[in-house]
């Protein structure tokens, strides 16, 4: 499927070109131009949603050009049902990141906005790349801008946090490079991702490669026990940095598992599945438990991210349609909900200059609109039915239940704990008596801030109530991945028809079709 218009190239290079333009414009024009470029990128990405043919499992909007002839590295882009939602999530979030930084970033605005746009281009590139080397280049190109964003505009302990972030993620991803090269020589002498996903590799090679992939992706997700960089980086990063980290950067890790580990290394993925599920459950419970103990809002959300991302990795390694689609849903949902929560923290931080829960209590009276939005995001984070996370987490748990009842039971503990830490946080922040020192500063959200929050609120309910458009676009691609992980002889029909019978309770709000269409 070749479209005449190079959608993805424009999506990637418009922000990069915008970053260069920003270097040459007047100071006063920096913010509006950055916003304009981010919005333009969003507007260009939206048609893809409708142009996308939901009946196909292959790549769409593909573009290919030879970049280096020997070894054959291509500039090769494309989207399928797995990457499309993530790309659009990225383009939706970026204008919001620019808006939330409007006043909170006061120094070196030009550099900040340019780095945001560079990151946007690199992130879209990660999701759209169909060549492994190209993917790696975009993947690594994210590091330096993020390093600078945290290190220059971050909080007091930013130097420690940013170096830790950088070295952790770099150390994880260098093994990926060796794995890519090994795959090239063991496979068909190609870096083409769809071609690599069709090859067969010996089990021992798969195991080594899986471990190398794991090092890169698990640090990025981050999975327990590689998560320790995340709370530091989140706490120190400026609001927009936190949003990008939580909403997009972490998804690059789970996207890696789904795009590479599962289809390219199906045997090893199955072999390591118990370990992955185990680590996911530990992350779910440990993250939630740690979140309970936090007094810093950003740290609380950071640990809740560890817990939520545990659900994503859990769903991925169940190898059934509910689990993987739920995980993919959850990736989008976490981007929306956690992004929203970080935006909320940014809004309140601009007023009280404190992220401590103890300093930000009783906001309902002085800031009623703010409190409403905060509660919506908090409830979405708990996965209340009617919100987006409910759909995702339910599907993940349903998929896990088929895989192991024990694992599903343990994972559902995470939801209970999530309710505990989120509701407790809401109870203190929204209700209670505001501290008199901060009361004069507590203006309710401005129209600009409202504009950053409302799109996410809309998405929370839209996906929560009507997830079908999203799911139908995912189905063929996810089935395609699952087909790779099945044994070549489709003899175990019974084990796989079982999912069909387990349908979600058809509440009016979430009519989730779960026909596990067999490939």
């Amino acid at each position: 499927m070749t479209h005449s218009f190079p959608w993805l190239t424009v999506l990637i290079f418009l922000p990069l070109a915008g970053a260069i333009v920003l270097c040459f414009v007047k100071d006063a024009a920096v913010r509006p131009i950055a916003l304009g470029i981010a919005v333009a990128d969003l507007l260009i990405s939206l048609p893809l949603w409708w142009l996308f043919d939901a009946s196909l499992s292959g790549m769409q909007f593909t573009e290919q050009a030879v970049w280096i002839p020997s070894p054959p590295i291509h500039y090769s882009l494309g989207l399928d049902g797995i990457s499309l939602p993530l790309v659009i999530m990225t383009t939706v979030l970026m204008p919001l990141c620019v808006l939330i930084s409007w006043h909170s970033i006061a120094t070196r605005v030009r550099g900040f906005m340019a780095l945001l746009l560079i990151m946007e281009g690199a992130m879209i590139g990660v999701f759209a790349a169909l060549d492994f080397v190209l993917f790696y280049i975009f993947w690594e190109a994210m590091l330096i801008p993020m390093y600078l964003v945290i290190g220059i505009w971050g909080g007091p302990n930013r130097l420690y946090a940013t170096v830790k972030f950088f070295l952790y993620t770099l150390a994880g991803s260098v093994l990926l490079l060796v794995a890519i090269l090994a795959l090239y020589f063991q496979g068909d002498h190609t870096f083409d991702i769809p071609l690599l996903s069709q090859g067969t590799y010996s089990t021992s090679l798969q195991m080594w490669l899986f471990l190398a992939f794991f090092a890169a992706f698990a640090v990025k997700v981050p999975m327990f026990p590689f998560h320790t960089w995340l709370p530091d980086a989140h706490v120190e990063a400026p609001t927009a940095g936190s949003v990008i980290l939580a909403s997009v950067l972490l998804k690059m890790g789970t996207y890696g598992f789904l795009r590479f580990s599962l289809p390219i290394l199906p045997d090893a993925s199955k072999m390591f599945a118990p370990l992955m599920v185990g680590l996911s459950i530990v992350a779910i419970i440990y993250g939630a438990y740690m979140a309970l103990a936090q007094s810093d809002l950003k740290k609380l959300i950071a640990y809740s991210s560890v817990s939520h991302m545990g659900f994503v990795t859990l769903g991925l390694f169940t190898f059934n349609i509910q689990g993987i689609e739920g995980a993919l849903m959850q990736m989008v949902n976490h981007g929306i909900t956690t992004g929203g929560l970080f935006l909320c923290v940014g809004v309140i931080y601009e007023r009280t200059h404190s992220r401590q829960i103890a300093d930000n209590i009783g906001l309902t009276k002085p800031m009623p609109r703010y409190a409403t939005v905060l509660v919506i995001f908090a409830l979405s984070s708990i996965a209340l039915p009617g919100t987006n996370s409910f759909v995702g987490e339910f599907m993940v748990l349903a998929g896990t239940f088929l895989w192991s009842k024990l694992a599903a039971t343990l994972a559902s503990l995470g939801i209970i704990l999530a309710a505990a830490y989120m509701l407790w946080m809401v109870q203190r922040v929204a209700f209670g008596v505001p501290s008199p020192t901060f009361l004069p500063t507590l203006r309710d959200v401005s129209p600009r801030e409202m504009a950053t929050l409302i799109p996410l609120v809309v998405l929370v309910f839209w996906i929560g109530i009507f997830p079908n458009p999203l799911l139908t676009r995912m189905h063929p691609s996810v089935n395609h991945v699952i087909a790779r992980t099945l044994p070549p002889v489709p003899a175990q029909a019974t084990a796989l028809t079982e999912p069909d019978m387990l349908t979600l309770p058809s509440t009016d709000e979430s009519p989730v079709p779960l026909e596990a269409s067999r490939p």
Partner: protein
Amino acid sequence: MTFSPGDLLLVLPELLVVAAACVVLALDPVLTPPQRDGLAWLSLGTLAVCMGIIASQMGQRAEAFGGLVVIDDYGCFWRLLLCFVAGLTVLLSYSYLKEERLHIGEYYGFVLLSLSGMMVMVAAADLLTIYLGTELMSLSLYVMAGLKRAESRSLEASAKYFVLGAFSSGILLYGISLLYGATGSTRLPAIASAIANQSPDNPLLLAATIFIAAGFGFKLAVVPFHMWTPDVYQGAPTSVTAYMAVASKAASFGAFLRVFIEGLGGLKTDWSLIFLLLCIATLVLGNVVALVQTNIKRMLAYSSIAHAGYALIGVVAAGRSTESLGGVNGIASVLLYIAFYAFMTFGAFAVVAMLRKGVVEGEEIEDFTGLAKRHPLGAFLMLIFMVSLAGIPPTAGFIGKFYVFMAAVEAGLPWLAVIALIFAVVSAYYYLRLIMLMYMREPGELTPDSPRLVMSPSLSIVLACATAGVVIFGLYPRPLVSLAAQAVLALK
């Protein structure tokens, strides 16, 4: 030996460089200091003409002076690179020497003389000719390292460089004599056929290989022959350091690869083991010791040691590879790596030279604190060079590492790539520390009399060339990749 006048035409670039050097040396005493600037332009013009001639020589293969010198794509690749780097050096020195108040016209003469030595090294197909080139290069560099006559550090650097350099030349010469004893020739093709006709277990051959490897080890500054590097790099004037770190290393690699592939290719199982050990030691020591440096020139010295280690991976891969094609890829990756290394390292030294202002030495890493506020463009360029040195895409440094690691994996050494990558992460720490100082720390109190940093026009050209190389080849490496592949095919 047969000699035909046509041979002189083949080595015209070398002759031009030597002639220009003589003119510079002769004119220097009769010119007033302001007029000596003209010598720099004369040198630049000569280099530009030479690059043109060399470019026109590409694609052919001709032997001159009865096989002492070979003009092939391989040699032309290095000669082009060397002339280019020498041109950058002249431009960098133009403003830097004024800052250092070194009004020495013969400086450019020495740049050209050592360049001619380097060009001979990479074009020679005879061990003694290579030795002559090495000596011509080194003797000029010894003088250049000591040009800051008023400073004891510079003199110490010169003396140290001379003593150790002479020592290593002796070792190299000894290895050459042993090899002559074992094979009866100093010509690389003759040596190769002599080795093919006898048992590779000949102890004399092994001893010769080890001595020659050690002799080149000094020139390449690989561990454990690196001891002179930090002191010399620190003591020498920065423009000379940049020249040494890039050009002399490139020329040494050029000659070294030709000797070991064309001459000693039959012993590759032996020497690949030697270089494997040297490579690992170099990667570990270079990167770890660089972590604790407080002087930027020392840090870059250790970084250049480490980068020689990365390039050695390609050599090891070439030696280990069973396929001839794999060997070609390994060597090509070395060529690419050194070419990319030239851009980024020269650029980094150029920024260091820019910081030299008035009383400020600009050589302590602390001097970079808050550079992003004092000179945003300089800081940004340094950021690009550091990112590239750390091997992070989308820069040329990444492409270089990619090809080297690819050669290693292809040769069945993925574990070597893993070790190298782990130390690449270590190296990222000290490169990033510089970025952190420039961007994330506030500059100290700026007193009214603290010097303003200015980028002189000649320095801007140097930085523009280096940045363009790092960025353009990072995004579009194809031209250089095919040039390197073509060059390697000329090696027999």
